[in-house]
Structure formats: structure tokens, C-alpha cells
């Protein structure tokens, strides 16, 4: 058994509120990404998908931000624990109680993180942004930006080599007339072309892990399809590992091997693609079932009612299931438990875990 490329264990993130209380943005997130595997993260907006990515990339500047957990990146060359010595910078009292208080030396921690991530970003982890036109500097050509990235991450390459490589990568992502597009500014390209250029830029530094943050939002259906096929093809050819964040099940269906379902900063369900995307299976967290039904447009009236998000105050949910207020299939048997205890991730099959008391044996 080979070691996984990325291991995240027990990641907790908090944000400060005005009255010095804390919003639990991520709670006990654990997952791993193996070599040549695609992990999909799905959930509604505000559920913590982007926060997970930001904390993986070490770009979370908030106070206190990451307070607990470990992130290990294990490549062929070296093994890096990016949250090493975190406990020296953070002091927590009354952990997961309503009167929780956290002190973190953020300036020192961010400085340390910047130093650590200097060798990781771009070289081991590369990122594809949503709406990639905005992710390019509007004032100079995409080709120059790609070769700048190559010059940064490939030591010993000169400008000519970088330009050739950039054009090769543009050709690789099926950009038409790559040597002309090399000199185009991002505003001279269509949305699909920009997305292709973004993928080329991310792949040009040959990362081990590619993170795609909603790679197809803002594109029309045919271009979406093209981009997905491209990602699929590159994944198979390059033996890449990927993390894909989206709220679209079709992307998951095309690309993902394993899927995490997020709800309010918790992983509510984890499983292989076949486990999660099986609409008719009864083994689902109620939230996943809701998402799947919403996708397949056969919602019954009762379920539509539960999709209404109530303007609930963010609070520490450690004494109840986070989904209680919206849950459709509470039964009398477990109702008491749902309101008073946080369910653990319960293993229901070899590959599937669900955070719901209904599946407790």
C-alpha cells in the first residue's frame, strides 16, 4: 500500500465574530487523496468548500483561521507537514463549548506559513480558479504569464525554453493556433479559451496535485463539456491527482473517484462515486438525498419545504446534529439523540461513511 499524496486530519477552522465569539467554519475535516485519484467536494455555498482549499494552499489569512489539525503532502521527493508546530501558536480554552476562546499568534504563524509554502505552491500544488479571465493579469499576454510561471517553478530554464514549453502546453490543452494566442491578452480571449489557458498555466509547472475550484462556472454547456473532457484526458495521461470543488453533480459524475459532501463545515457523507451518486439508494445522509433529488427534479413537496434555508445564527453545533432544523427523516426513535448529540461519521459500507444517527447500528 502506497502512502496517500495528501492527508488531511481533523482540520478545524474558526472565524472571529464581532462579539468575540467564533464561527466554526470547518470542523474535524479528514480526508486523503491518493495518487492518480480525483476527490470531489460538493456542498452548498457557505459550507466551507473554499475554506478547505484556502487552508490547503496556506492562504487563509483570517484570525484565528486554522486552529487544529494536520495537512501532510507526501510526494516522491519529500514529505511536508504544513501545519507542523501549530499547537505552539494557538491556545484554546473550553474547546467546543459555547464559551470557547482562542488565542493565536497570527503574524508569526502566517510568516511561518509563507516560508513553508514557498516551495509547495506551484511546484506540488497548482490551482485552477473559477472565472479564469479574472485570474490572469489583464495587462499582458497569457503566453508571457504562462512562461513566467514556468521560469519560476522550473529551475535552469531560460526564456526561449519557457516560451516553447508554454506554446506546447497551449497546444496540449487544445487551444487553436497556440502561437498566435501566446500574444493575446486575456480580454482578447473567450471564456473557454481563458479556462484552457488557465489549465495550461497550472499544468505547465508539472504539479503533483491539481486543485480546481469550480472549473466550469460561467461557461456555457458545450464549452463546459469540452473543458471536462480535457480535464479527464489530462488526468488519465499525466497520472495527476485532483481535488475538484463544485456544486454540480455532472462534474462529479465525469471526473471524481471519491466524493465528500459538506454541510455547514462538517463532512456529512463520504464515499466512492457510485455510493454517493446512486439516486435510488436508501443509504444516504438526508442532505445528500436532498441534493440528488434537487438535481433529478423529482422533488416532492415536503422536500421542497426543507430546502428553504432559515436565517439561522451561526453557532457552535457541537451539542446537536447540524442538520436537525432541516432534516426530513427524523423519527421518534432518534429524535432525542439528534437534538442532543453530534453524530460521528458512521461507516455504513467499505467505502461509505455517513454522519447521521439513523445509520447507527
Amino acid at each position, binding site marked *: 500500500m502506497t502512502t496517500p499524496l495528501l492527508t488531511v486530519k481533523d482540520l478545524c477552522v474558526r472565524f472571529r465574530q464581532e462579539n468575540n465569539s467564533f464561527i466554526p467554519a470547518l470542523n474535524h475535516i479528514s480526508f486523503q487523496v491518493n495518487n492518480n485519484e480525483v476527490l470531489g467536494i460538493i456542498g452548498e455555498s457557505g459550507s466551507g468548500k473554499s475554506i478547505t482549499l484556502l487552508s490547503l494552499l496556506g492562504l487563509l489569512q483570517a484570525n484565528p483561521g486554522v486552529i487544529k489539525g494536520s495537512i501532510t503532502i507526501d510526494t516522491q521527493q519529500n514529505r511536508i507537514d504544513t501545519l507542523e508546530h501549530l499547537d505552539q501558536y494557538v491556545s484554546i480554552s473550553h474547546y467546543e463549548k459555547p464559551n470557547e476562546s482562542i488565542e493565536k499568534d497570527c503574524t508569526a504563524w502566517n510568516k511561518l506559513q509563507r516560508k513553508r509554502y514557498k516551495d509547495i505552491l*506551484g511546484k506540488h500544488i497548482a*490551482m485552477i480558479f473559477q472565472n479564469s479571465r*479574472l*485570474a490572469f*493579469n489583464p495587462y499582458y499576454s497569457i503566453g508571457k504569464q504562462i512562461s513566467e510561471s514556468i521560469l*519560476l517553478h522550473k529551475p535552469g530554464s531560460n526564456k526561449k525554453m519557457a516560451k516553447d514549453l508554454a506554446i506546447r502546453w497551449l497546444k496540449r490543452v487544445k487551444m487553436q493556433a497556440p502561437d498566435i494566442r501566446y500574444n493575446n491578452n486575456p480580454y482578447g480571449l473567450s471564456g473557454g479559451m481563458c479556462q484552457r489557458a488557465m489549465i495550461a498555466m497550472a499544468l505547465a509547472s508539472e504539479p503533483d496535485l491539481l486543485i480546481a475550484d469550480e472549473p466550469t462556472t460561467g461557461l456555457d454547456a458545450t464549452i463546459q463539456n469540452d473543458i471536462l473532457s480535457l480535464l479527464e484526458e489530462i488526468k488519465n495521461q499525466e497520472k495527476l491527482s485532483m481535488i475538484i470543488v463544485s456544486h454540480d453533480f455532472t462534474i462529479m459524475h465525469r471526473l471524481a473517484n471519491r466524493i465528500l459532501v459538506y454541510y455547514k463545515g462538517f463532512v456529512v457523507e463520504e464515499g466512492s462515486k457510485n455510493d454517493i451518486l446512486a439516486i435510488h439508494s436508501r443509504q444516504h445522509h438526508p442532505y445528500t438525498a436532498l441534493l440528488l433529488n434537487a438535481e433529478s427534479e423529482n422533488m416532492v413537496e415536503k422536500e421542497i419545504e426543507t430546502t428553504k434555508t432559515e436565517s439561522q445564527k451561526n453557532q457552535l453545533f457541537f451539542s446537536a446534529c447540524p442538520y436537525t432544523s432541516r432534516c426530513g427523516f427524523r423519527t421518534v426513535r432518534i429524535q432525542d439523540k439528534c437534538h442532543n448529540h453530534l453524530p460521528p461519521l458512521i461507516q455504513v459500507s467499505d467505502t461509505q461513511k455517513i454522519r447521521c444517527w439513523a445509520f447507527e447500528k
Partner: protein
Amino acid sequence: MNRINKPLPFKRKHFILRRWIDRLIVLYCLVVLGSVLTAFTITQFNIIELDYEAMDFQSILTPPLTNGHILGTDYLGRDLFNRLLLGTHAYLLPGLMAVSISILFGALLGSLTLFANKRLRKVITLSTELMQTTPRLVILLLIIAIFEANIYYVMLVIGITNIPTVANLISHRIDILRNKRFIEASIANATPIHILIFKHILWYNCRTILISQAALGMAEAVLMETSLSYLGFGVQEPTPSWGNMVQAGSNYLLQGNLWSSSIPALAIMSVLLAFYLLAEVVVKQLNKRHSL
């Protein structure tokens, strides 16, 4: 239907006219600034021997194109054309010094605000307001009174007092850029901080500000130099400056001799206009290239 068939308010004629006006402006800038530079190089390296002190007592206060004087002579019979060419020495190098000081340090100080230091922002804003409310001529006269009437001191002061203005503009631009996705993306791509600041922010995103500020600063330097020389605090006679040439000629203006003061005054005006138009044209061209 009617609406579509109506002729557009702008005709093709107007666009062509506007394009020709643009071209004329560029030509004007090139001619004026080019001739200033040529005059400077000719007099600096003595390509043509020009004597600005030789007095021709046969022709005092003559109009242009008499007795072999292209632009006429002043009250001592000195050739105005030669003095006009030599007058470029008074402001070109000192002005460049002032501009480079203000642009260089202003850009550096402004880009320091990227690191979210609120106190620094406050210092920059307050000092900009201070500089804009204090009359600069008073400071300059004070400096001249304390030290001596040297044009390089004057330009040093102008350069330093322009730093907060440039820094303020850059820091405002950085405030807009800070939350842009491409800055975030380049941080996520581990771009070193010096490349991020100098290449992505200062060069590609602030160059219109920097170039226009440089041209405007140069115009201001010319204006300051000539007005101080006019008052007698800048370049001293017999060394020619356009300012003291205007001053010398103005005594004879009411006697009906227009040329000896209006020719250097026109030269000042045209150079100022050239710098202002240059700022506008360069910014317009750069913006045109990046717009959709």
C-alpha cells in the same frame, strides 16, 4: 423601425477628424520635445559653437530675421535664438532629477501599503494633504533664503514634495488591486513578492499613473524653474533661462518691443503644453491597448 433607420448622431467624418487631431497632437509633442532635446544636445556637446554672451551693438532689440539674428536680439544685442537653445539647460536635467526622485520614491512608498499598514496609509494621505495645502513657492523661497539660489536645490525640493502625491495615487490603485483575483492567483502560484510588486502591480497596472505623473511633474518643474528665474531666484544672469529672458524682455514690452519677452514666453508655453499633451496621449494609448 424608424429608430434604426435614423442616421447616427456621429458621422464617419467626426471619427476621421478625431483621429487626425490625435495624430496632430502626437506630432506636436514629438516636434516640441524633440527640438528641446536637440537644443540640449547641441549646446551640451558643442556641436555648433553658440555664443550667448556676444553683444551686437548694431542691432539692439531687433525683431526676428534682421541682421542675421533668426529670432532677433534682446536689450544688450544678444542673439535670442542662441539664448533660447541654451535656456534648455536650466530645466532639463534638474527637472529630470526632480521627476525621478518623486516617481521612484513615490512608487516605492506607495507599494509598501500593499502590506496593509494602516498607519503608513494615514501618513501618506496626511502628507499629501499637507503638500497640497502649503504653497510650494513659499517653501522654495525659504530654501533659497537659507541656502543659495541653486536650481538643483529647488528641484530637489520639488521632487521631494511630489513624493506623497505619487505615493497616494499608487496606494489608492493598490487598494483596488488588492482584492483582484489575479493578485490572489499569483500569490497562489508562489510568485515572489518583488516580481508581484514591480512587474505585476507597478509596471503593468500602475504604469499609466507613473508615466502621466512623470510628464506632469516635468511640466511642473519647467514652470517652477521659469517662474523662479523670472523672480530672480533661479538661474542668474548672464546664464540664460527662459524665465529671466522673459523678465529682461518685459521691461521693453511697453516700448513696443514685443519679441524679446514673448518669444521665450511662447517657448515656455509650448513646452508645458507638450508635456501635458504627452501625458494624455500616452495614457490614452495604453488604455486603448488594454480595453476590450
